[in-house]
């Protein structure tokens, strides 16, 4: 029984033998490198119980309440799992509740369900991820599409009602899972038709075809010339900044002209836009400057022998400084690669230094429809109007949201500002997200709010427990198990 890599746990009389890297029967104690350690794998869930934290979030926010604004009962999210399901991590635990007390129940989860929802992904990269409008897949299922390129970033649009409920059943389920994982800050693997495979996670650098994207480009190739022309002046005769969008050439560029940099006889492939600025020097890709080229000289034609000279110094660099090469022309005007001189290394490093960290941003976007609004007021359109008039503030798990102009309550929120694991789902499939409406009590009455449910709020400031019970019984709300912890930060 006692193999070399097992230890015996004496934390309880079960006295489990635990293998290296495993846990005992309790899932709490484990063997890490031969040492018995408390593992607590489900930290999030566990915290509420072991630290005796209230299973109701937003408490702190309420304490700071100045008395003029009412936090409607909707904000009191019951962290169901926290008490009942958690200490143990069995799947599918039943959660017991009392109809009267509403204790651990999630009965009104439906009110927080968003069938019309998705995420907008901004992936900071110059690498080519795929043609605009092409499908984005997760687990082989279409879950979204490639949309516009922005400055240094590629946007993807994932989810939406057509993928969630309009396609195949598996498509809906996988879309839901993908959105949920992204919203809850987990890693998701995506494959773009005719493009790249990307691994994305909110607030983390993207991984494109297995390569970690560390930096955004400093600017397009032309902009880079403009920014660094002075630093290159006198240290090098020609600079080509390779970029999928606009490749810049120092001697032809306006910035080079202003510095009096003489022509070099360089001939670029691609389509000249304006002097020193070239489109389409190569195909889009994941190599130099978001192109497909790995050999930078391939974008140059023969040098003009009437202008070029032996010994001409040429720097080729990508827009992130990640790729660079230095050449000097030989007697036959052929570029010969040489070590990068220290004086130029500095400018390449400067390019890199000016590149911001590449990140993936995930904005959850959803529309608060009829039934959700009905949970707030008997006259749903008045809630919309109230939000429009800025009388009602909308938050998502306490995080600020951007509410789109126009009809309805369509909002976007940065998922990294929403409490951990605040998002859930139902098999419809649709996402469940927290959403709170905060407004003055008088306004709440005006818009036909469930004032009866609010009444116990009078006693909130003096009696915490009573507030919880009263609010929850009448207005359960979707699941933001860990909202309290973050909301207090």
């Amino acid at each position, binding site marked *: 029984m006692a193999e070399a890599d097992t230890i015996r746990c004496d934390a309880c009389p079960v006295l489990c033998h635990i293998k290296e890297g495993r846990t005992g029967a309790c899932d709490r104690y484990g063997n890490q490198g031969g040492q018995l350690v408390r593992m607590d794998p489900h930290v999030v869930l566990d915290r509420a119980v072991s630290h*005796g934290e209230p*299973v109701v979030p937003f408490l702190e926010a309420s304490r700071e309440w100045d008395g003029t604004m009412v936090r409607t009962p909707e904000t009191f999210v019951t962290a169901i799992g926290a008490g009942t399901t958690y200490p143990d991590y*069995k799947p599918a635990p039943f959660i017991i509740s009392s109809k009267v007390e509403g204790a651990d129940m999630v009965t009104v989860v439906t009110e927080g369900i968003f069938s019309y929802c998705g995420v907008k992904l901004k992936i900071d990269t110059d690498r080519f991820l795929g043609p605009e409008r092409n499908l984005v897949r997760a687990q082989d299922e279409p879950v979204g599409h490639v949309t516009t390129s922005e400055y240094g970033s590629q946007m993807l649009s994932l989810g939406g009602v057509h993928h969630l409920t309009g396609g195949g059943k598996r498509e809906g389920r996988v879309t839901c899972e993908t959105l949920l994982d992204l919203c809850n800050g987990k890693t998701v693997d995506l494959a773009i038709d005719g493009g790249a495979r990307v691994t994305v996670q909110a607030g983390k650098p993207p991984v494109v075809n297995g390569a970690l994207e560390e930096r955004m480009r400093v600017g397009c190739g032309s902009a880079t010339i403009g920014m660094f022309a002075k630093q290159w002046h006198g240290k090098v005769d020609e600079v080509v900044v390779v970029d999928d969008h606009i490749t810049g050439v120092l001697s032809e560029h306006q910035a080079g002209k202003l510095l009096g940099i003489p022509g070099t006889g360089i001939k670029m492939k691609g389509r000249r836009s304006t002097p020193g600025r070239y489109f389409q020097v190569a195909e889009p890709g994941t190599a130099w400057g978001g192109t497909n080229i790995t050999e930078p000289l391939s974008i140059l034609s023969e040098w003009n022998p009437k202008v070029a000279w032996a010994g001409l110094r040429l720097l080729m660099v990508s827009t992130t400084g990640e790729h660079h090469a230095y050449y000097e022309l030989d007697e036959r005007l052929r570029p010969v690669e040489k070590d990068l001189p220290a004086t130029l290394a500095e400018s390449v490093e400067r390019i890199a230094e000016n590149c911001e960290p590449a990140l993936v941003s995930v904005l959850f976007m959803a529309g608060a429809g009829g039934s959700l609004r009905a949970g707030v007021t008997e006259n749903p359109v008045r809630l919309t109007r109230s939000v429009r008039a800025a009388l009602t503030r909308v938050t998502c798990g306490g995080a600020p949201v951007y509410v789109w102009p126009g009809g309805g309550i369509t909002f976007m929120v940065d998922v990294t500002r929403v409490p951990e694991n605040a998002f859930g789902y*139902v098999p419809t499939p649709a996402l469940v997200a927290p959403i709170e409406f905060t407004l003055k009590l008088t306004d709440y009455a005006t818009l036909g709010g469930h004032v009866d449910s609010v009444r116990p709020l009078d006693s909130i400031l003096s009696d915490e427990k009573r507030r919880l019970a009263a609010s929850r019984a009448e207005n359960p709300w979707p699941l933001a198990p860990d909202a309290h912890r973050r909301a207090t930060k």
Partner: protein
Amino acid sequence: MREPAVVRMLPDGRRLHLHDGPMDLIVEGFGAAECVRAAYAAASTRFVGVLDELCSELALLRRQARDRGMVPQGVVARRMWDAVAPFAETTFITPMAAVAGAVAEEILGVMISAAPLARAYVNDGGDIALHLASGEEFAVALIDRPEQASLFGKAVIRATDPVRGIATSGWRGRSFSLGIADAVTILAATAAGADAAATIVANAVDLPGHPAIGRAAAREIQPDSDLGGILVTRAVGPLRQSEIAEAITRGLAKANELAARGLICAAALHLQGETVSTGVSEVSALRLPSSWDFPLERSHLHA
């Protein structure tokens, strides 16, 4: 070093939290305040002895339960043994398959002996024992994975229903499963009976030999496991709809068999987003979403 048992009230001031070794219970009683207090005191007193009691017979409880074999002595151990006995003739099963439900039942039993309560539940990590006085009811909800709160069904259990035990089993859980169900939830007359039946039905939801299913010998993961060299499920890859249907159909057949033998009242089986149930008419109001377009024959669906 032995960690002492934890006995305390949760911050809501209503529920009792009992923890010792691998046991973790959430307890709640409803009734007159002094009755609830007395019940909690009784539960706490009983609880602190249970783990040692079970561990004194642990070797026996980890062996296949057999009619002719040695019978355990402890009251909880006997309850475990009785709960798995109906399956022992045809299947490999040890009393450990019912440990959580049996402990929940034991604690609930001392509570309602100590004081009259309108309602009470003892939730031992998802295996739940219920007490309902005449006219009372409980609302319960199912979620499929604790870390992703997704509601896939609800039920109201009334005093007139025969259900007093609820248990869930699946391969993602802390206990090993031989099957691939994400969750099988059983409603039965007792918590220990539900616990054992959940294990049996979850084991039956399976696709033997399927390449997307990763399995390993239980003892390779936990050397002390009562399952020894039996292969347990460690990973389940994406399955086609027809495969999901096939696996669920097998589990459903087992659930129907147990229902016919009177061992369970109802079952809900959950696999990769699909849910089916059986025996629902036995329970007052088990409600599953009505929009399932799952490719099983209608006769399988009672929801």
